[in-house]
Each structure stands twice: as structure tokens, then as C-alpha cells.
């Protein structure tokens, strides 16, 4: 059944996150922009697949990429920015390949390229409000945010990437805090392990199976590398992920 596939399950969880974000924002226009992103990624992917003379298949990966783009792109952007991000993502998915395998995370590449073109940064609007707080609604939002972990950590078994990423990320952020004489263990964890943006990134984007290593040691190194690139080169998580994709695409 389709619903048993990892990508469809991931899409369902991302839709739940998008709906919860719309409720939190008390406006549903962002959902429309997310829908636009999904429609664009699906249609673009299907066109490019046809151009590449590949037998058509359910564009479940395009659905996931469109949802990620919708959750991360500022809803205040012009609609054509969302369209361009989505088209760029699918172009990268279809044409930036090595030995017929993806190199870069599609959503990340689309967001990065469009950010350069239009000089805007990733908003993370849909995955930044789920701060863990002691009330039922916040807890519910937080659990919804964690739900994609069922797919990436359990179904796809990409937990080594997440573990190595967080270990290195927390360690070096802590070292930076110690150097700055501002170390606070609780703030460290709240800003890393329990930060909603970082959680979404590590549960959804970082372990994307088509652009990450399949074997244990490369997975550990990949997660660690992305964390170190983000911290030492002062890259955004998106940029660090793309660097990690580039460094490790041969290890699949």
C-alpha cells in the first residue's frame, strides 16, 4: 500500500506539521503557499522525468520536497519565488546527479539557489514555534514536530546520522559557549537538542535517504561533518547539508 511507503508517511507527517503551524499562526495563507510549492514540485518533476525519458512514477519525493519548501519559505514571499524555489529543487533532483544518483537534497538546493538569486534567507516559519513548554498545546505541537522521526529513525534506520550530528553539534556549541564564558547547560540543550528548527532539520532533511550514505561509518561521518561545517564555517544548516551532500555523495 502507498501509505506504507516511507515517503508517503513522511508527507503525511509534514502535512500535520504544516496544519499545526497554520493553527499556531492563526492564518491559513501559508498553507496555500505550501500547496503551491507541492503542486509546482509535482508538476515540474513529472515534466522533467518525461524529458529524461524515464518511466513515470508516483512523485512522492516531489511531494515531500514541496512540503519542506512550503514549511521553510517565508509565506510573505511573492508566489513566484515559491514557484522558482520548487522548480530549482526539482531541476537539481533531476539533473545534478552522479551515476544516476542524486547529489544534493532537492529542497535544500532549491532554497539555497533561490536565496542567492533573491537575497532572502530561509524563514523556517513552520518549524520554529514548537518550543517545548509545559502546556498541552505546546506539547502536542512538539510531538507533531517529532513525528517524522518515526520515518527517518525507525523506518529508514538513519538514526546514526542524527546521533553523530547532535553529538558534534552540542559538543562544539558548548565549547563555543565555554570560550565566551557563557556556558549554560540548559540553554545549550534548549538551543540544540530541543530547538524545533534543529530537530526538524535533523529528523527530516539531514537523513534524506537518496542523498546520504547507506553504510554505518559514512553515516556517522556525514552527520558529524554537517555539524562541523555549520559551526566552524558559520554556514546555515541548509548550506552545511549541501556541503555534506557534496562530500559524501560517493558513499552511497
Amino acid at each position, binding site marked *: 500500500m502507498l501509505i506504507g511507503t516511507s515517503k508517503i508517511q513522511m508527507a503525511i507527517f509534514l502535512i500535520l506539521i504544516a496544519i499545526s503551524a497554520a493553527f499556531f499562526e492563526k492564518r491559513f495563507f501559508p498553507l496555500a503557499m505550501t500547496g503551491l510549492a507541492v503542486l509546482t514540485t509535482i508538476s515540474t518533476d513529472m515534466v522533467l522525468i518525461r524529458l529524461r525519458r524515464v518511466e513515470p512514477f508516483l512523485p512522492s519525493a516531489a511531494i515531500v520536497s514541496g512540503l519542506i519548501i512550503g514549511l521553510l519559505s517565508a509565506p510573505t514571499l511573492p508566489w513566484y519565488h515559491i514557484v522558482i524555489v520548487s522548480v530549482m529543487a526539482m531541476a537539481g533532483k533531476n539533473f545534478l546527479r552522479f551515476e544516476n544518483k542524486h547529489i544534493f537534497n532537492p529542497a535544500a538546493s532549491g532554497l539555497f539557489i533561490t536565496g542567492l538569486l533573491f537575497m532572502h534567507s530561509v524563514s523556517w516559519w513552520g518549524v520554529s514555534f514548537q518550543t517545548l513548554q509545559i502546556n498541552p498545546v505546546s506539547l502536542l505541537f512538539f510531538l507533531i514536530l517529532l513525528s517524522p522521526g518515526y520515518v527517518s529513525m525507525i523506518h529508514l534506520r538513519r538514526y546514526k546520522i542524527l546521533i553523530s550530528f547532535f553529538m558534534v553539534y552540542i559538543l562544539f556549541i558548548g565549547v563555543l559557549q565555554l570560550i565566551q564564558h557563557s556556558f549554560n547547560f540548559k540553554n545549550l540543550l534548549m538551543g540544540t537538542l530541543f530547538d524545533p528548527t534543529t530537530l526538524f532539520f535533523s529528523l527530516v532533511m539531514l537523513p534524506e535517504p537518496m542523498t546520504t550514505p547507506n553504510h554505518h561509518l559514512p553515516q556517522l561521518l556525514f552527520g558529524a561533518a554537517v555539524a562541523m561545517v555549520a*559551526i566552524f564555517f558559520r554556514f546555515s544548516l541548509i548550506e552545511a547539508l549541501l556541503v555534506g551532500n557534496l562530500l559524501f555523495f560517493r558513499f552511497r
Partner: protein
Amino acid sequence: MSNKVVVGIVVAVIVVLAGFFLVYNKPSYSPSPQPQSSTPRPQKSTSPVTVQPSATNEATKEQNVITLTAGGFSPSTLTVKAGTKVSWINKSGSQATVNSIPHPVHTNYQPLNLGSFTDGSTISLTFDKAGTYGYHNHLNPGQTGTIIVQ
């Protein structure tokens, strides 16, 4: 229910309970550290700012104030001279933060990780070095701003 699912649920519950334990005793959450390096020195005030009129630089003080509302930081780009103190006033109606780009690692300029401030309160930072400093509200990363120090 498979063992993997059970393990995953248990891990998730442990993580959430650990989070509650960490959150419980502290009412406010500061997503980034308060740097205490000697230069530049961030200045944080949790009480609303009362501007003390000065005969010479009242207008200048007002020019170096950034207001955060529900619509974002205003002005979104502020140009100041080195050695100038810039203040952020939170009038957004909810808790907010001022953190260095990029989100969420905040590594570009550590002193700009001023952390959270409640609605009605003010935080400040003196910029000693020339450069361009991007920042954002960690709790709403679409709200961004830039300080250009000449």
C-alpha cells in the same frame, strides 16, 4: 506493534520528559548564550527603557532604537558608527529574541546573541567594530534585520 516502534516511542517519551525536567524550573527560555566577552560587551535590560533626554543626542538615541512589532524589526536595516549602542524594544506582544544569523546556529557574531526579551522590555548592544551584522528573532526566524556599522 513491533519492537522498533516501541523503542521509538519510549525514546520519544524519555526525550519529552527530559525536556519537561529541563524546562520546569525556569520560566523563561534563552535559546542562545549571553556572551560576556570584554569587547564588545552586550548590555541587557529586562525593564522597559525610559529614555533620559539629553541636550545633545536625544535624536541620535532615538535613531539607534529598533522596534520589534508583530510585523518585524523596524527599521530592518540600521546604519550606525562604530562605538554606537543599539537598542531593541519588544512591542510584538510576545516574547522574542535577538540572535545572530544564521538561524538556528547563530554563529556569525556571538555578541549579537542577546537572547530572549519579553514584550515591553529592551535589550542593547554596543557595536565597536565596523561590519555588517545580520540578526533575527529565533522564535520567528522570518523576522530579520541588519546593523551596518561604519
